[in-house]
């Protein structure tokens, strides 16, 4: 763990709402090594995006983060806005979910890209523009030099997300946060955009945290996976073993709900009964209400996240059953 690029310890994200406080992320700890691709999966509302927002200092006004986010030796949560601005957009950058609304409609695409380089790397306007055009070319925007002088509404959705990728990777960050980067895109270009992102990140040695609810994407790109439920880590495993031997009942449910080629003739996909409960409550396992194999202890005591060394290296799960029956 000493060689990790990012090390999150006991991260909590709370939101103040009119009806009281709600816990979106609850005691999450995870590590990312340089160059590694970590997937965070979970359904809507599991808090996966909020982890990224907390790291970037982009939580909504009523949100508060607690715990520690150590990135290159600095606790991002404790930095002043000025110091944080020296990290984000430079060593740490982010790609957002909706490319249609994430680019400034009033600014030329090239200028939006160049801006970061001017601020972070001290390049001149001309140098930064040239660099921006080169990067647009690398994300395969045709006729990049001319395109850089256009405005976002003149780009298609897929092209805009490639612009976002160019923007995020322009400063050669050490870590790229990608928040469901292809959800808003046409299915036919999702894979293409993701592969491009992964390929460019590999070239620059950039590590990625990829937040998604698409397990297919995880299988394709990720080295390691963290499964999140109700703001808590349920399971963590290397990507290839997670699909073959899920340890947590929730992960098993997720995998059963995933369409597979060999089961295409079965009438229905598996579902997990019930709905996620909102707002983390203090007692018990967050998944207990929907779990088919729950024990009496699950409703009263929260199962801790334990190393499953018996199942293989790098495996953790928060379930009484997996601890008991390796």
């Amino acid at each position, binding site marked *: 763990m000493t060689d990790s690029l990012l090390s999150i310890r006991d991260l909590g994200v709370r939101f103040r709402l009119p009806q009281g406080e709600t816990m979106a992320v609850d005691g999450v700890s995870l590590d990312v090594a340089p160059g590694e691709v970590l997937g965070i999966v979970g359904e809507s509302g599991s808090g996966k995006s909020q982890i990224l927002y907390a790291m*970037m*200092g*982009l939580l909504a006004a009523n949100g508060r983060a607690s715990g520690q986010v150590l990135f290159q030796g600095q606790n991002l949560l404790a930095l002043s*806005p*000025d110091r*944080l*601005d*020296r*990290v*984000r*957009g*430079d060593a740490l*950058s*982010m790609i*957002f979910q*909706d490319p249609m*609304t*994430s*680019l*400034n*409609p*009033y*600014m030329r695409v090239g200028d939006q890209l160049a*801006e*970061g380089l001017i*601020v*972070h790397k001290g390049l001149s306007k001309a140098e930064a523009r040239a660099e921006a055009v080169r990067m647009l070319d690398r994300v395969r925007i045709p006729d990049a030099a001319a395109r850089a002088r256009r*405005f976002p*509404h*003149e780009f298609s959705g897929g092209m805009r997300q490639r612009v*976002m990728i160019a*923007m995020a990777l322009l400063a050669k960050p050490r870590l790229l946060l990608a928040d469901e980067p292809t959800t808003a895109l046409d299915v036919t270009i999702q894979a293409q955009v993701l592969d491009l992102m992964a390929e460019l990140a590999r070239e620059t040695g950039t590590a990625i945290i990829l937040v998604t609810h698409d397990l297919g994407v995880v299988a394709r790109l990720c080295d390691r996976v963290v499964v999140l439920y109700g703001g808590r880590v349920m399971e963590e495993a290397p990507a290839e073993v997670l699909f073959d031997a899920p340890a947590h009942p929730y992960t098993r449910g997720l995998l059963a709900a995933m369409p597979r080629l060999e089961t295409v003739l079965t009438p229905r996909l598996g579902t997990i009964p019930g709905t996620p409960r909102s707002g983390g409550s203090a007692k018990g396992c967050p998944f207990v209400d929907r779990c088919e194999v729950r024990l009496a202890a699950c409703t009263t005591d929260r199962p801790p996240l334990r190393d499953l060394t018996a199942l293989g290296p790098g495996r953790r799960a928060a379930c009484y059953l997996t601890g008991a029956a390796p």
Partner: protein
Amino acid sequence: MLRFIGKRLWHGGLTLAALVTLTFFVMRLAPGGPFSRNRKISPEVQANIEAAFHLDEPIWRQFGRFVWGVLRLDLGPSTRHRDYSVNDLIASGLPYSLTIGFWAVVIAAMVGVALGLAGALRRNSATDYLAGTVGVVGIAIPIFVIGPLLQATFALRLNWLPVGGINDGWRSLVLPVIVLALPNIAYISRLTRTSMIETLRENYVRTARAKGIGWHRVLWRHTLTGALLPVIAYLGPATAAIITGSILIETIFAVPGIGRHFVDAALNRDYPLVMGITLLYGGILILFNIATDVIRAILDPRIRNER
């Protein structure tokens, strides 16, 4: 862009022509005429006067005469103010209305935008509440209440400024300008605040923050354009309305502007003056709308591309 402006001017001209035509005939549908009074005049005198103003001609000829006059920039004689042409009346009144209106718009835009931005950036702070109070007061209290109040305070009690009139240079402008600006400050600050708060929530502003370019760049380069577009859209027509004079302001502060001519002219059935002022108002309104569209097109590439 030139083609765009040309097209808008052409459409504006058509609109103006339609407006003027409609006004001309509607005005004549209204009962009474310029010389129908309670006071009895002999039919011969009545006929003479009407002949002098061509009111005895068929209506389409009167209209033709009017249009021919407009083309020569001659709006004809006023039927009410003997010996004055409509051109004279507008030329004598418009400068006062323009001056007061211009400063009122400038102050309203600057103060309104500043208050709105301050309120949006420091929500629920003292500044925000102050701006909110100014907004409610400015919208809720009518000009004919706040005007005399300020006159009583700053003119009669403190004796700093004249009560009204136009003979004290810039000092006579202060009160009418403030009173005219106040409700506009209120609208503009509310509009700016709402629009700024919405823009700050935009995804692209979040992207800008994620770039780590500093709060000032985020604000100036990424937030203001979007936040001020609705304000600019409001300011165009509002400016046209403000600089063409307000009857209330001109009455309260005894300013010989053109706002009062309009109402007087309509009441007196002063056909040429009504037509002249309608033409002026319509023209100014259309010009400012075009100016607004041009500015918005410059700021927003999506509007530009629609043409």
